């Protein structure tokens, strides 16, 4: 197992190099001049050239990339053009907010998704199953932006139960995490349902039924262990997406996480921050994927990696 993990981590290195090159190129080729955005419409050429030189833009792209690579290898992501603060520090502070939001969202998503999915599968073709399918389809198609504003309107403005936005307390976390978790819960519910249904067709389930075991026991002890494998993959992927920036939800609820940081950075063409965030999101994805693969063997010990 440890050899497998080590191998996977080694395999990530070339991927990361490619990502770093691509992200560097994308960021530098994005239309929009960061200096012009920072300094407004009326700037003279002398100041412009001075700032350009200070930022190292006079060098050819490959030289700039080399410098960037050297910098990140020493663990430094540079200084933000916009905030003039260290990008690594900023990411460090914001990462916890996004991580908190993601975990809370996944918590809602898993609870709702698994319960609805398993229940729908167990009561296949019943009225509850149909309601489950219809409502999850509806939820998937609701824009997060609108859903978030509606939750805010109801629970914060009308009922006054929660703060509208911002961060700091557990109450601040509820509405954004529910907004974010809801869409994912629908995906998980549908995945769980079809996966459980598939396993219910297997021979060993029929055997168990023939032995006279209760259905609930069959589902909890036999079916889920097998049915959860694809669900874990799906959950992992969703987790990666969420962690990669819950952009819309963070904007709506003024949540100071990486999603809103990404938006601010892109609008300001803050190259160091943009590059660091893209790279970070890629690393997160790779790590989440690895963890997903490892977790298969925990759920079903018959799966082993050599």
């Amino acid at each position: 197992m440890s050899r497998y993990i080590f191998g996977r981590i080694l395999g990530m290195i070339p991927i990361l190099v490619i990502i770093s090159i691509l992200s560097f190129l994308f960021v530098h080729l994005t239309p929009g001049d960061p200096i012009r955005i920072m300094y407004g419409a009326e700037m003279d050429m002398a100041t412009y050239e001075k700032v350009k030189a200070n930022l190292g833009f006079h060098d050819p792209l490959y030289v700039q990339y080399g410098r960037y690579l050297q910098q990140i290898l020493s663990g430094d992501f540079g200084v933000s053009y916009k905030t003039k603060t260290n990008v690594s520090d900023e990411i460090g502070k914001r990462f916890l907010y996004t991580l908190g939001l993601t975990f809370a969202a996944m918590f809602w998503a898993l609870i709702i998704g698994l319960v609805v999915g398993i229940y729908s599968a167990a009561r296949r073709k019943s009225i509850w199953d149909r309601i489950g399918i219809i409502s999850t389809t509806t939820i998937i198609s609701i824009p997060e932006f609108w859903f978030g504003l509606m939750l805010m309107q109801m629970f914060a403005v009308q009922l006054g139960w929660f703060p509208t936005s911002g961060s700091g307390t557990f109450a601040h976390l509820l509405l954004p995490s529910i907004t974010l978790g809801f869409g994912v819960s629908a995906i998980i519910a549908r995945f769980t349902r079809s996966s459980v249904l598939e396993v219910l067709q297997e021979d060993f389930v029929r055997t168990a039924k023939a032995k006279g075991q209760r259905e609930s026991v069959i589902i909890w002890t036999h079916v889920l262990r097998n049915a959860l494998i694809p669900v874990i993959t799906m959950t992992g992927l969703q987790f990666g997406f969420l962690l990669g920036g819950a952009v819309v939800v963070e904007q709506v609820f003024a949540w100071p996480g990486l999603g809103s940081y990404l938006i601010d950075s892109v609008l300001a063409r803050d190259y160091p921050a943009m590059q660091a965030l893209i790279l970070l999101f890629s690393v997160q994805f790779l790590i989440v994927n690895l963890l997903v693969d490892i977790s298969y063997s925990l759920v079903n010990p018959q799966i082993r990696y050599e």
Partner: protein
Amino acid sequence: MRRRVSLLTVSFLMATAMLSACTSNSGQPPPTSGPAPGNAQQQEVPAKAVRNAELIVALEAEATSLDPWNSTDSNTLHILSTMFEGLLTLDENGEVVPILATDYKLSADATSLTFHLRKGIFFHDGSPFDAEVVKKNLDYVRNKENGMARASFFGFIKEVTVVDPYTITVTANEPNSAMVAYMAHPSASFKSLKELQKKIDDPKYNLDRNPVGTGPYQFLEWKNGQFVKVVAFDGYWDKEKPAKLAAILFKPVTEASTRVNMLKVGEVDIVTSLPTLDARTIGKDANLDVYSGPSLNMIYVGMNTKLDKYKDKRVRQAMNYAINKEQLISQVADGYGTAADSPLSPLVKGYAKQQGYPYNVDKAKQLLTEAGYPDGFAATLWTRNSTEFVAIAENIKMQLQAVGIKVEVQAYESGTIFERLDAGEGTDLYIGRWGTGTAEADWGMRPNFASDRIPPNYNNSGYYQNQQVDQLLNEALKATDNSMAQKKYIEAQKVIMDEAPWIFLYVPDVVIAKRKNVLDVGVTLDTVRLQAAYKQ
């Protein structure tokens, strides 16, 4: 499950109700704006209100920098104005008044400006304010080696001379009657010499994050993405106007609906840049006040005068006649704006109402025919991709179609559109917004219409060149007496209006909202001033 379904139903119903509430009024003139907060009658501040409260302000974006020389966005000015002061400032009526100076005098030939400084003023870090501080500050910002965003703004200065510890003279490169207004701009604020020295000693020292001024509030904390907090400064020099709040918290909230919701539930006390769509509903709330009034901004459609089709003045005039500005304002700004009758906002010193272009399709068609375009032509209109700008673009497209001009709207993110305009390739029509930060005519016209302000990196992106305009602007700047300068500015506005290098659209209103218990909030030329604000 049932609860979820019912939640959805309720949400749908509420959304529908909200939408109908929002749209039912559009097209009508906006409700009369409340009294300008700055003009509110001075009430005696109740003793217990003194420094008892924290005021929370929602801004549409995070500050870019807390260094007055390194920020050019109006959003940041709301924060800076609580901490920094300059030698001069503008009062609610846009008149120049001294603050850190006791008086000032422009020389007879308009080449030098002498200030007598107020004594006994200390910065938040305890260091004194004197002529040396002013000189070091101005020398630093205008030195291009230091790469400050406002370097070009102070480019008019040739030399700063300390006459005595409390007298200083600013000499201009050439006669410049506008320099008084420049020195009254919020960018011309002064920071402690101690701080400046730290920056000089270590170029990496971050002045953007260490604001030390002389204002009634001093900097406490800036938490990225969350807030900037300033607190009352006990050593403030003007004992008659001390800070009345314990602290002010500025929160960036990019989503407009969220800002509005925060205000409704009382999580924030003031919202700047209120969406006009929400202004009506908020105005009806018994706990809230809406203030609206003209801004220093001008919304316009620029045209590339290098292109054959726009070389003929009649075509440019025809396009001005073809736009119904009132309809545009009512449809895209919910009535919160004033049709342009000059290249300048009425708030700008030197503004003079001109013969505008009343909506007249027949006249437009006639002019186009005379210019050889009886069937119109095809054009591309660049706009920023924000809702407001796209709405303007679509409206312009629709209106120009009526005179045969077929417009294709292309929306870009703002950074991209700047770059395209700077590159000067493929520019046809573009929607622009210019804010005359200094509130005087030179800054309102020179950057947009002077021959030497064509791209890259300047705002005359339509490549408009007119010797008469250049001459008038230069003469006005050199004019030593006010009435002569004024005459030249009026003439320049007349020529520009007649030449029509832009489609002059409208001056949008500043719309802010606050809770009723917040008093003495000032709006001086687009900047929300909180120095005197307090909560009841």
